[in-house]
């Protein structure tokens, strides 16, 4: 199965049932995974900060860096590939916390809160979340089925609901 790596501050969309989208290195960053089952089309955005307001130039250069730009852009990219806007559902993973650091907490929790808020504004149902904790994650999504998995610190992959 061809693996497509979704890098930090990037997004990727596919309607090729052979593809597997993968994100490694989710720390305080987060991944939103969108999928339309009937169209067999989906995508992942790997963003690192909640809000682009103070960094407009960077957001033009790296649109997927910020939740508020990345998520609407991902929706648009999915519909361009054939997903139906009203049939898209979302999953969310990431937002780990560094122990004891306020700055990490505000970025991690900010990323998760921003993703929830933006998905709600876009009326996209959030069906599953795997967030928080002190550990890194990886996620992957099969384009043929939409099945999504999250990797635990022990190396095992667990399917997300």
């Amino acid at each position, binding site marked *: 199965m061809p693996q497509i790596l979704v890098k930090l501050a990037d997004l990727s969309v596919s309607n090729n049932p052979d593809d597997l989208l993968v994100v*490694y290195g989710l*720390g305080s960053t987060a991944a939103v995974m969108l999928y339309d089952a009937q169209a067999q089309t989906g995508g992942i955005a790997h963003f690192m900060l909640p809000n682009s307001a*103070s960094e407009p130039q960077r957001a033009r250069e790296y649109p997927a860096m910020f939740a508020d730009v990345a998520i609407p852009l991902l929706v648009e990219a999915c519909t361009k590939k054939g997903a139906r806007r009203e049939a898209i559902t979302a999953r969310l993973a990431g937002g780990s916390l*560094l122990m004891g*650091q306020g*700055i*990490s907490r505000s970025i991690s929790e900010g990323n998760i809160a921003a993703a929830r808020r933006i998905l709600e504004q876009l009326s996209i149902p959030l069906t599953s979340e795997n967030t928080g904790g*002190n*550990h*890194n994650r990886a996620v992957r999504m099969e384009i043929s089925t939409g099945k999504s998995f999250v990797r635990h610190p022990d190396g095992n992959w667990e399917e997300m609901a």
Partner: protein
Amino acid sequence: MSMDSAIKKAVNGLPAFPATVHRVTALINDPDSSMAELVDVVRLDQSITANILRMCNSAYFGLRHKVDNVQDAILYLGRQNIVRAVMAAGASRFFRNTPGYEAEAKVMWEHAVGTALLAQILSKKVTGREETSLFTAAILHDIGKIVLGAFVKDKYAEIKKIVSGESRSFLEAEEKVLGMNHATLGGLIAANWKFPEEIRQAIAFHHRPDRLASGNGLMPWLVHLADQGCLMLGIGQGSDGLAYDGLDEAMKRLGLAQADFEAALARLVKELDNARELVGIVQPSPH
């Protein structure tokens, strides 16, 4: 053999830090040195020469000319960048797959480079300067893991139990189980390698800059914060993950606001893109 002496023996078994790097640093700091001397010193080390040629055309160094020989590289890089390039080229040879931390050489190296770039971005914001000694300390901050990894691997279950069961940082668990943590050990390695005290301390105290007397400057704090920034972005993750006790006072000590830190993280992504060749000098190891 006790754990402590076994670890110290492993440190003494590490090869010396390439003399070329120290000689280049000394020449750069000597106003009477000539370009020809620098070229001669660099050429003595074939691996450093090869690495410099591989990475000097990286957008990070901002050269306008395509460079294919050491003389031109040194001519165009400028003094500060020569030290960075030679330091990166010399340090990279020590990065290898590190069991215990479950990190591949390439991942360890990417974290080292990321931390060095972010430390410099933060330093520029805080002091207006980018110092090459900070680059050195940051790129070597986790060098202790290279040696400690094998010992961590042997006691992994015990260390993990303390991290998850007692909610302690991985560093504290290392100290509790092995009697030594990778930061302190890194300081010892840097001492063996004859680095100046400022760099040794920034390495040894990169998790706990608050344990240093106040007169020690900002370097340990910059490395501390840059290290965390990279872990938050997943740049170089290992088994220790985010079980890292970040000090809230770091931002205050450095006079940074949250927006400054976020802007620095955003900039780091751009700089890492520019520094692909620098990151690429350590290749994935075969499994």
